[in-house]
């Protein structure tokens, strides 16, 4: 056996566990000897033919690094199929939670520590910190699950969140009504959002640490006619009814979606008229010179939200068809 075989065997066992190296090395050497012998036959081999046969055998065995990987049988990927459901489950739950926590924390800290709160600075700091937090969370989840993937046995994966604990059956189709769950979740979120919108005229500015600007009164002009407020709450009540119907039925018919779209546009028109015909925001929160600009920016923001909502609803509905 030549130095070539020694190098080959050493390369194979180089990255194998210490305890199995000698055994595997001895087996590979015996195999190479057998294969060389079979090639040479019973006739007395010359040194040249021995060298050629050995080279051919090593060629046949192939790349020693690949052979070593076959022996270790260790995963050649970061997130394998056994950990993938856990990985997706973690991303689905952890990332939104991190995003919400980051936004809330940054908004509260910025408002509490900045004497003159400016929207641009607030948005810049919040978006920047949230993106960093999301990337960090993604990296931590990926590394932890990637490391866990290397020390996981099949029994352990069956107990993990996101992994199936029982074999699949047709009954799972009823239990996992994904479309219905999505519609219910969206309806609950929309109801929470509607309640928050309804509370806006009642929230004192001191609640978000800017009470010094108007002595802790609300964000809305106290002289605004009660009819406008009642109209606003009336429209929100209609929206809440539509969402409640979706929640109870766990489905959203085309008629319901069209009604919702018409209601959205109607509310936007109502708010546009309200904002462009009178003072809606508390006078102490708006500078006299820029009052009109602020009202127009608010109107534009409302219509951007309405258009975005229509587009996303249309996309979601088409995807569910």
């Amino acid at each position, binding site marked *: 056996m030549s130095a070539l075989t020694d190098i080959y065997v050493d390369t194979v066992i180089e990255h194998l566990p210490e305890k199995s190296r000698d*055994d*595997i090395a*001895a*087996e*590979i050497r*015996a*195999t190479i*000897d*057998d*294969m060389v012998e*079979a090639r040479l036959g019973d006739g007395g081999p010359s040194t040249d033919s021995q060298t050629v046969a050995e080279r051919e055998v090593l060629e*046949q*065995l*192939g790349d020693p690094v*690949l*052979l070593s990987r*076959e*022996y270790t*049988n260790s995963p050649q990927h970061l997130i394998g199929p056994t950990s993938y459901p856990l990985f997706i489950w973690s991303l689905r739950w952890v990332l939104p939670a991190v995003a919400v926590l980051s936004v809330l924390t940054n908004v509260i800290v910025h408002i509490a520590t900045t004497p003159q709160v400016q929207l641009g600075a607030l948005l810049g700091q919040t978006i920047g910190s949230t993106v960093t937090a999301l990337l960090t969370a993604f990296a931590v989840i990926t590394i932890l699950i990637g490391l866990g993937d290397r020390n996981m046995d099949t029994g352990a994966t069956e107990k993990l969140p996101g992994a199936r604990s029982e074999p699949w059956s047709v009954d799972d189709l009823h239990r996992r009504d994904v479309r219905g769950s999505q519609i219910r979740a969206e309806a609950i979120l929309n109801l929470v959002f509607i309640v928050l919108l309804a509370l806006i005229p009642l929230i004192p500015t001191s609640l978000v640490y800017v009470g010094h600007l108007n002595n802790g009164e609300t964000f809305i002009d106290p002289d605004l006619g009660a009819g406008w407020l009642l109209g606003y709450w009336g429209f929100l009540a209609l929206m809440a009814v539509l969402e409640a119907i979706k929640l109870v039925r766990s489905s959203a018919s085309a008629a319901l979606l069209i009604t919702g779209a018409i209601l959205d546009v109607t509310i936007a028109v109502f708010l546009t008229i309200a904002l462009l015909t009178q003072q809606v925001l508390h006078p102490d929160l708006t500078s006299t010179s820029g009052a009109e600009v602020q009202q127009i920016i608010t109107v534009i923001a409302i219509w951007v939200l309405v258009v975005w909502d229509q587009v996303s609803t249309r996309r979601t509905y088409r995807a569910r068809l």
Partner: protein
Amino acid sequence: MNEDEEQALATHEQELRRGTVVFASLVACRHPQYGYSLLATLTEAGIATEANTLYPLLRRLEKQGLLTAEWNTEQARPRKYYTVTAGGAEVAAALHTQWLGLNSSITTLWKEGTP
């Protein structure tokens, strides 16, 4: 058959053989076999196998308890002999039943699909 089809065929053949080699090794190891003798036995039986696939596979089957391994140092060249265990024999018998069933099914399917 064009180049793409040949490549697809090679991939499918490899997948088909992968499971076959495990079954064939368990069957062949009903008599003690060392690595090269098993390779030769399988090749003679028409089940072409790469050495760099077979040796790690034997080790995995040993870890699973389907094969036992023992070094024989009495011969001029020390060799590691593999023999199927009782559990391995049961697995081989179950695989054999599956194999016969699949063979029968695919033969029927082939006849039905042949004009």
